[in-house]
């Protein structure tokens, strides 16, 4: 078995909007190993969600994958036909969304939604599917009688558990969790993250955790990938990236957030996020970067390999 589960190579995703072409994901390469949680961290507009949805090829209609490869377990997802892709969704890749209330069909009982998903992928009887759904609910810490509930009858945390049950019921190889706890309070958030982590152990899956909260990623992820303005700027094991961030943006991000357990001054990153229709030339971070040199303006840096697990895209390390 290969060590790498998912390899994204030179992926470009563009949106065609009224104002022009938005290069939401621009030449991103990323490899995710088996049984690994990778935190995809970035602010709004960084392209982190677009990257997540590009993997399952569920972009909004204006979004197009322009070039690149997305290889899951040796198979290039971008080469699959639509019906082959459908078999991958839900079965091999499970998704957990930000807002569990709007992500569940309000008119259907949660049990029926789980069963529907199972029957779409596996050829078993309805009865067996129901048993499977009940088991899946128990795995996520809900009593099986919740199968008969409508989404609006559940609390926020319970709904997110249902979403997780939906994503994991077919034991996928990869789970993409898009801001799975942003709509939840901290205490519930912590327990949902705990649940995701334990399911990862149990099912031997990998998880892509898309989040704007680098502390959350630092606590739960094995590796962190930092995105800014459509580019991937740093990719490294969580501990290393937190203790010794290399890219000026990562450094700025870490300095800009307060921490409950630290007495520290916080520093903002100067300036504003760029307009993606007209991104800055060269390194997209250069207008806000304290170390920017003339070269940064002219030429985009290449991804530099620092060591086996560590990558950074910055002229400072070239």
């Amino acid at each position, binding site marked *: 078995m290969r060590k790498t589960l998912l390899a994204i190579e030179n992926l470009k995703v563009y949106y065609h909007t009224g104002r022009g072409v938005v290069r939401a994901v621009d030449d991103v390469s990323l490899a995710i190993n088996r049984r690994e949680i990778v935190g995809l961290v970035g*602010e709004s507009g960084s392209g982190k969600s677009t990257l997540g949805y590009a993997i399952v090829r569920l972009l909004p209609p204006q979004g197009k994958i322009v070039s690149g490869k997305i290889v899951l377990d040796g198979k290039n997802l971008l080469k699959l036909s639509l019906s082959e892709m459908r078999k991958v969704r839900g079965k091999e890749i499970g998704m957990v969304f930000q807002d569990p209330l709007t992500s569940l069909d309000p008119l259907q009982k949660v049990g029926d939604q789980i069963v529907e998903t199972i029957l779409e992928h596996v050829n078993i009887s309805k009865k067996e599917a129901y048993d499977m759904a009940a088991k899946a609910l128990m795995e996520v810490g809900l009593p099986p009688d919740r199968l008969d509930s409508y989404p609006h009858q559940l609390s*926020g945390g319970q709904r997110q558990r249902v979403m997780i049950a939906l994503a994991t019921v077919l034991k996928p190889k990869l789970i993409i969790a898009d801001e799975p706890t942003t709509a939840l*309070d901290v205490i519930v958030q912590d327990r949902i993250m705990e649940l995701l982590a334990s399911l990862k152990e149990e099912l031997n899956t990998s998880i892509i955790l898309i989040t704007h909260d680098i*502390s959350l990623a*630092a606590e739960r992820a094995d590796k962190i990938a930092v995105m800014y303005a459509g580019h991937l700027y740093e990719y490294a094991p969580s501990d290393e990236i*937190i203790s010794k961030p290399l890219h000026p943006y990562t450094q700025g991000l870490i300095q800009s*957030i*307060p921490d409950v357990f630290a007495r520290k001054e*916080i520093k903002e990153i100067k300036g504003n996020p760029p307009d993606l229709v007209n991104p800055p030339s060269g390194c997209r971070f250069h207008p806000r970067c304290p170390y920017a040199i003339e070269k940064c303006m002219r030429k985009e840096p290449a991804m530099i390999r620092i060591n086996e697990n560590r990558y950074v895209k910055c002229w400072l390390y070239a």
Partner: protein
Amino acid sequence: MIELEIIDLKKYFPVQKSFLERLLAREKQFIKAVDGISFKMFSRQVFSLVGESGCGKTTTGRLIVRLEKPDAGKIVFEGSDITFADEKQLRPLRRKIQIIFQDPYASLNPRMRIGEIIAEPLIVHSIADKKEAKEEALKMLENVGLTPPHMFYRLFPHQLSGGQRQRVAIARAMILKPKFIVADEPVSMIDVSLRAAILKLLMKFKTLYNLSILFITHDLAVARLISDTIAVMYLGKIVEIAPTEELIDNPLHPYTKALLSSVPSLIRRKREKLVLKGEIANPINPPSGCRLHPRCPYAESICSREEPKLIFYGNNHYVACHFPLVNRRY
């Protein structure tokens, strides 16, 4: 000096029902958003109200600026009772107490220019004529870092980023040189990298105008950063009040402790976790006694019977719990 005192403040919202349904229902149902809270705020202090969504912290803020009418209790601002002041009495007060809202996308009128938005308070209170108001607004724009001010004056809100919009909201609140600011989650909808700048701006005005700030947030990390005192709310009640460092280092209420042990942190020191069962209860029928008791691992029978009062534990530390974690401290 005491700037603001809240005594046993209550706000119940009727559960929305149509006319006929109300006739049929046996009793009216209420969401007990704020259910008897008391605290004092000293001037030039930053006092944080921390809690999860639905705990009543936002309602408390809206009650203090009197965007809502309290049902019972008292709000005393600078020695005068403003609890039931009517709109006419409130108008001079609005010059002294201002609010900054959470959502900078919704708090600015999309059809007004930035300059008009900032100058509006001056016009409303007939403090300045149009020309003077414009001058003031331009100065304010400079002050909140929206330069060049002449350019920003003419823009519309949708042409600004979230962080810039929140600067406009701050400018609007500050142009009347208020004494007291309610800041309702002012940075929670702003990009992480820009939050620090907004918080710093707020603190700049604090020193400039000798402001007192009631800071409402769900984020303990932000609260720790800027506040002198933190009060933790749960289901319409204050469960703990303490000076910031004291609260973080020695949480006495199980809820505070659970909150602290759930907040993600970059300094991943091993913490003992206090896990609460279930989720926040329905504020229509909150649990009897201590509202946390169904979720609390230390709950005993008295907790479901008797409501704990805020009790002084030294060090300016108050807690409402029958079995505070004080014994577990050492």
